[in-house]
């Protein structure tokens, strides 16, 4: 199957004038797309631009309404997922699709098990799995249970699985969103290798800064339309962003001058397991404090411990100098300390409930009258205000929250707290996985809170955001606070140094 000489100009995917409509929405409008052998094509656009829809057409999940589709020199009229797989198209999903309780080899050969008469030929499957792992240069045993492996390794297994079915076209949808920077480097090494072997890679990501390491060409989409395509190095970041958004974003991080006020909130001696150790810090009115660190530094755990979600072994909290008890989230909410959690789908939203019910949920204590009866008028007012002030794009309050785009879902997660008079608002990765436009809106929102004299704490794994948007930076590593920096003078190197200040004796 392997081609001898790889020629860069070999086009392996060519999609021309593709259109696809869903009832009420034109998801793709005359889009053309091209992928060559041995290249990484970055497919960029805001959420809702049509990137995933286009890739679903390529992988046979959706049938196009119009346009032609040529894969490896052959035109396909009706492409089914099965046929797409057979001709070498593979998707590495953003949310990994694996059976967590099965082994690596069992997952790789799921549905095409090698048989030995009527019994499974495990030895051969293990050997084959090992072969592909070796080829990728990753150290994963075929007999390991997938669920025990970190996400980064699971991703490698998906890639290996794609190679094992002879995939030539790999579609990676936000592959780095859950990886640490070291794991990202590992992934990039593998992408370079796949490139060298002549695979074509479609790379979808919101993290523009990482593209310079891997992207050869770029295709930009907006509102279901093809905008531009060209060599990656011919564009500046700002050009790409303005093409994606369709408008100039003047300030990427609209930081407003800090008017640091009184001390609002203080955390003393907070301990909660290994990931939260001896945490002490204070938040001030009208100040945005960024919590930096690597993945697994204990920042999310810290927010959860403060908010009373997880049990803590010690810890005292002071609001305006007075000690408050927080044993469960409701205690924190009553005191005016609120948290917009990291994982929207898991912790932030009741996805099966309507927008209205989601917005009202934490505010039921005050929109309910006597006997706990919900006041429809108060609820309406609250929801209208949230939708308007955050410009949440929804076709109505009754639609299920999960029908909204990621950015709008995030606005609901944040918006449900704004109706309350909060003193402290904690954001955990507020801009993860949302598009540039929605990001700026979240920043503006945080600024509004800051101007109202609310103490804002936000956890972020994106260095530019931490450096560009916070007033003060607290860095964590391995469950401890390792340093505090004034954001104006802080550099990326300083933050990174603190973020990797592991205790040597632990040897982990």
């Amino acid at each position: 199957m392997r081609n001898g000489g790889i020629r860069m100009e070999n086009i392996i995917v060519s999609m021309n004038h593709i259109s696809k409509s869903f009832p009420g929405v034109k998801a793709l409008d005359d889009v053309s797309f091209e992928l060559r052998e041995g290249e990484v094509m970055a497919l960029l656009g805001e959420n809702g631009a049509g990137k995933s829809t286009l890739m679903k057409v390529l992988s046979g999940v959706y049938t196009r309404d119009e346009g032609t589709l040529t894969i490896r020199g052959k035109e396909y009229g009706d492409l089914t997922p099965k046929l797409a797989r057979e001709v070498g198209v593979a998707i590495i999903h953003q949310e990994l699709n694996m059976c967590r309780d099965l082994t690596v080899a069992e997952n790789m050969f799921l549905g095409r098990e090698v048989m030995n008469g009527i019994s499974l030929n495990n030895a051969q499957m293990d050997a084959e799995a090992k072969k592909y792992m070796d080829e990728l240069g990753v150290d994963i045993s075929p007999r390991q249970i997938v669920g025990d492996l970190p996400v980064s390794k699971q991703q490698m297994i998906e890639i290996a699985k794609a190679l094992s079915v002879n995939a030539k076209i790999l579609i990676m949808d936000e592959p780095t969103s859950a990886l640490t920077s070291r794991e990202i480097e590992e992934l990039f090494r593998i992408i370079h290798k796949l490139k060298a072997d002549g695979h074509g890679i479609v790379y979808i990501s919101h993290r523009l800064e990482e593209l310079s390491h891997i992207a050869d060409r770029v295709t930009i989409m907006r509102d279901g339309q093809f905008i531009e395509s060209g060599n990656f190095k011919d564009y500046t970041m700002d050009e790409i962003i303005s093409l994606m958004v369709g408008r100039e974003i003047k300030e990427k991080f609209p930081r407003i001058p800090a008017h640091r006020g009184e001390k609002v909130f203080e955390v003393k001696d907070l301990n909660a397991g290994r990931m939260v150790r001896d945490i002490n810090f204070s938040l001030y009115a009208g100040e945005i404090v960024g919590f930096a660190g690597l993945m697994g530094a204990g920042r999310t755990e810290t927010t959860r411990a403060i908010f009373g979600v997880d049990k803590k072994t010690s810890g005292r909290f002071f609001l305006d100098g007075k000690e408050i008890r927080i044993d469960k989230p409701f205690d924190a909410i009553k005191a005016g300390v609120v948290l917009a959690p990291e994982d929207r789908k898991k912790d932030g939203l009741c996805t099966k409930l309507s927008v209205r019910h989601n917005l009202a949920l934490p505010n039921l204590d005050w929109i309910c009258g006597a006997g706990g009866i919900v006041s429809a008028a108060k609820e309406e007012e609250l929801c209208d205000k949230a939708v308007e002030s955050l410009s949440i794009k929804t076709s109505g309050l009754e639609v299920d929250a999960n029908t909204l785009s990621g950015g709008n879902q995030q606005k609901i997660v944040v918006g449900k707290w704004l109706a309350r008079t909060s003193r402290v608002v904690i954001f955990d990765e507020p801009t993860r996985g949302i598009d540039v436009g929605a990001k700026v809106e979240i920043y503006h929102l945080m600024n509004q809170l800051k101007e109202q004299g609310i103490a804002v704490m936000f956890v972020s794994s994106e260095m530019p955001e931490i450096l560009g948007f916070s007033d003060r930076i607290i860095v964590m590593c391995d469950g401890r606070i390792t340093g505090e920096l004034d954001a104006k003078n802080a550099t990326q190197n300083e933050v990174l140094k603190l973020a990797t200040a592991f205790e040597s004796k632990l040897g982990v």
Partner: protein
Amino acid sequence: MKNEKKKRGLLEIRGLRAALTAFAGLIVIYVAFGLINTKVFSMQNIMNLLRSMSKYLLIGVGQSYVMITGNIDLSIGSVVGMSAMLTATLMTLGVAPILAIGASLLCGVVIGIVNGTLVGKFKLPPFIATLGTMFVARGVAYMVNGNRNTDNIGITLGKETADRFQNIFYYGKTLGLFNPFWIAFVIFLVFFFILSKTRSGRHIYAIGSNADAAKLSGVDVTATTIKAYLVSSFCAVIVGVILAAQAGMGNMDAGLSYEMYGVAASVIGGVSPLGGSGLLLGTFAGAALWQTLENGLNLIHAPVGIQRLAIGIIVVMAVLMDIFLRSGSARSTKKSD
């Protein structure tokens, strides 16, 4: 414009479409049987129908509450039996009916709290936790009167007291309809109101949709789970009392497999077995549909087996239809990026 927006919003309320579909099905079945046998339309039959339906309605309301939290209560049928036996046994011993019912309610509350605590606090799979209490409650039902059905409830209290009890809970009428229907209907209305209009109702939906997110929004997941199981136990106890009144005695096997009838009524009415969605209005339609089917098949002298068979098919069809409707509407509303 504003009006139009409101109207569209109403149909988008989760579960309303399924509930209305169940009502439509109910009407079709009712009319179809009526065309075969006009007795179906008689006032007498309608009254009987409403009376028989009361048990399914109560069981359905209880099971729906638990199902909307994303759980299930397998102990309902046994609690019905326990309540019937306990109420009847105490009455044969000369205890006043009101106290006998009180004692049954107390036992029901205990079972509800145990179920809710096991599931909500100790995170036992609801199937297992309530399987345990199912056996326990049935065991209690057997032991209460020494492993046999009770004598007539009037044996020591006298015929007059026994008759009054039986009239209040089964044979008597108020405003032209049998009392058990009113009892079930009032309880239905109360819980309908709580579920749709109050804070604790919202909490029930929220933990069924996403317990983690609900917790982070300040909802006490354990307390809410216990509340849901209390509702199902309460409803089961009332059904037990109704059965005792109907038979004039306690039957050890009363309420056998009622928990599954509750699941069926809920599911036919569009309550999601996965939690987070469903309306008690649907459960009402589900219970009525079932009873109408049973009643109609009886009147055309169909064998009992046919009833079970038909119910089985309808339950599966209802869920299948829901899946098709949902995937259809998901395709039309879901915006992909």
